[in-house]
C-alpha cells in the first residue's frame, strides 16, 4: 500500500505571529511546528504502515525551510519526502494550494491520501477536500478512526454528537483530526537518518496538469482585506452570584448594551 500524507509547516503559537505588508503571514520570520492535525494524519499513516505494511510519502508545500517538517516526518518513520517550493506558488489561498498539491500528487502512486482536517494558521479545513476534487477521488473528512479492509478503508467520521462509519474504495482521501491519536516521538537515530536521505524538490515545472491561472497569489480568489495579531482584551468584570441572580444579571447587561 502506498500512502501520501500532506503536512504543513505552521507558526508555533508559542512564538509571536508576524505579517507581510500584504497581510499574508511572514513565515520565514516565525518559529514553526508541524500542523497538529497533519501530525495526527502522519501518525495514522505510520500506524497503518506498522499494521499492514505501507510506503509513506510526505508532501509539503512552502518555503525551502519547510523541508524541516519533512525531516521531522521521516524521523518519525515516513519513507520519502517531497517539497513543493517555487516563488510563483507563494501567497496561495486554499484553491491555489490544493491545485498545487494535487499537481504534485499526480506524479505519485497512491492508494490513500491523508491530510489534516485543518491548519492552525488558516483554519479553513478546505485544502484536503479540494485536493480530492482535483484528483476526482472520494473524500472522508474528520476521521477519528481508520481501518483497512481489502481495497477499502473504513473510517469513523466524527460529528458533533455521534460518528458515522463510512466505507470507501481506495484510492481515496481522508482528513484527520488531532484527536485521532497521540503522535509518536521521533527517535534520535531516526533524526540523523532523516538528514542523510534525499528529499525530492519540485517547482512549478514539475506540477502535472495545472494551469498557471490557478497558482500562487495571482491564482487565489481569496483577497485578504486586513490581518492583525490578536489584541489583548481588558480584564473584564468579575462578579460572584448564585445561578438565578447570574442569569438576570447577564440579561440586564445584554439589554443595556442593546444585544437583546
Amino acid at each position, binding site marked *: 500500500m502506498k500512502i501520501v500524507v500532506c503536512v504543513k509547516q505552521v507558526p508555533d503559537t508559542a512564538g509571536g505571529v508576524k505579517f507581510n505588508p500584504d497581510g499574508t503571514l511572514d513565515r520565514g520570520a516565525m518559529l514553526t511546528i508541524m500542523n497538529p492535525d497533519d501530525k495526527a494524519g502522519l501518525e495514522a499513516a505510520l500506524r497503518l504502515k506498522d499494521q499492514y505494511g505501507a510506503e509513506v510519502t510526505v508532501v509539503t508545500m512552502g518555503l525551502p525551510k519547510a523541508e*524541516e517538517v519533512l525531516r521531522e516526518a521521516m524521523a518519525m518513520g515516513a519513507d520519502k519526502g517531497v517539497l513543493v517550493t517555487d516563488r510563483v506558488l507563494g501567497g496561495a489561498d486554499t484553491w491555489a494550494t490544493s491545485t498545487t498539491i494535487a499537481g504534485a500528487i499526480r506524479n505519485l502512486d497512491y492508494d490513500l491520501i491523508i491530510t489534516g482536517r485543518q491548519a492552525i494558521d488558516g483554519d479553513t479545513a478546505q485544502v484536503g477536500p479540494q485536493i480530492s476534487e482535483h484528483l476526482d477521488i472520494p473524500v472522508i473528512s474528520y476521521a477519528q478512526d481508520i481501518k483497512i479492509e481489502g481495497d477499502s478503508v473504513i473510517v469513523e467520521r466524527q460529528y458533533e454528537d455521534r460518528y458515522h462509519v463510512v466505507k470507501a474504495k481506495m484510492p481515496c482521501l481522508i482528513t484527520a483530526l488531532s484527536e485521532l491519536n497521540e503522535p509518536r516521538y521521533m527517535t*534520535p*537515530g531516526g*533524526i*540523523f537518518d532523516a*538528514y542523510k536521505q534525499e528529499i525530492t524538490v519540485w517547482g512549478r515545472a514539475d506540477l502535472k496538469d495545472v494551469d498557471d491561472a490557478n497558482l500562487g497569489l495571482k491564482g487565489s480568489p481569496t483577497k485578504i482585506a486586513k490581518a492583525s495579531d490578536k489584541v489583548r482584551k481588558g480584564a473584564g468584570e468579575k462578579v460572584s452570584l448564585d445561578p438565578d441572580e447570574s442569569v438576570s444579571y447577564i440579561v440586564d447587561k445584554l439589554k443595556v448594551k442593546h444585544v437583546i
Partner: protein
Amino acid sequence: MDFTLSKEHEMARALFKEFAEKEVKPLAQEVDETEVFPRATVEKMAKLGFLGIPVPKEYGGQGCDPLTYAMCVEELSKVCGTTGVIVSAHTSLCCDPIMTYGTEEQKQKYLVPLAKGEKLGAFGLTEPGAGTDAQGQQTKAVLDGDEWVLNGSKCFITNGKEADVYVIFAITGTVEKRGRMQKEISAFIVEKGTPGFTFGTKEKKMGIRGSSTYELIFTDCRIPKDNMLGQQGKGFNIAMHTLDGGRIGIASQALGLAEGALENTIAYVKERKQFGRAIGAFQNTQFQLADMATKVEAAQLLVYKAAMAKATQKVYSVEAAKAKLYAAEVAMEVTTKAVQLHGGYGYIREYDVERMMRDAKITEIYEGTSEVQRMVISGALLK
C-alpha cells in the same frame, strides 16, 4: 570557528526537550518527594532509543555521536536531575565499557539489550574504603575452574537495585610495578540474580532522590570465566577510561540543572513583585542573572567541546575533567543563586529550584570529585 549546531543536533535537542517537558517534568517533584525510581519514564525512554544514543546501530543503539547523548542528559536534567543521571550512568558507565572493551559475544549478549533499553546498566567501582583512591579496592575475584568467585562489596551504586547488568571491578592478584607490589584490578560483567549477589541498604540522599543508590554485596558470587571484561589486570585503566566518558555525562547533568534553575529564575523575577516593581527590574537581579547566564554558556561550551573530543580523539581525559569541574561548580553556584533570587519561596519544596540546588551538589562529588578533576587537569599541565 562556527559555534552553531547542525540541524540534526537542533532537531534532536527539540525532541529531548519535548520529551522532558511532557513526560519527565510533571513527575520530577513526586520522584524527589517519594524517592521512587521513575520506572515508567525509563520504559518510555527505552522505547525511543534514549538508552542507547551513542551505541552503534548494529548493537541495537541509535548510532548518534556523544554530543547528541550529552544533549539528551542535559535536557532531561533541566527538569529532573534524577532522570538525567539514570541515563548517564547506564550509558556512560555500563554501555560504554562493554562497547569499548567487550568481546563480540559480550556485546551481543549484554550491549544489545542494554542499548535497546530492555536492560538497565550500572557500574561498581566505589567501595566504603575506596572512593577517590580507587586503588584501595578490597573486593576480590578468584578463579575457580571455569568461574570467577567474587567476594566484597560496592557502595553508592547508581541504578543500584534497578539495573540488570553491572560492570564490577575486583582485585585478581598482585603485580610488581616499579619494585613495589600493587593490586591487580580486573573488570567483570555481573548479571542481577546471580547467586551470591545481593543488595545492601538503600542510601537516603540529599538530592537525585529518585535515583536508586544501593550497596552491592558479593558473597561467593560465581560468575562465568567469560564474563571478565577486557584483559586481566587492565581493570584500573578500564575504570579510568570509562570515568572520562562518565564525566561528560555528569557535566551534562550539571549543565542541565544550571540551565533549568536559570530558566525558572528568569520566569520568577518577571512575576514576583516587591516595592511595587517586578524584582527583575532591580539591578542586583539583572546583574546576578547576567553572571548566571554567562557561566551557564561557558559551561555549555566546555561540555560540548568535551563531547566532541570523545567523538574525535582517542584521549579526552582533560577535556572531560575541565567540563565536569566547571559545569558542576557552575551548577552549584547557579542553583544557589536561583534559590536566593526566589527568596523564601526558593527554600520551599514546592519550587523546583529548591530541588535543583540539592541535586546539583552531587555533581561536584560523584564520578570524580572536583578535587580529582583538578588533579587530572593539573597533572596534564605539569607532565
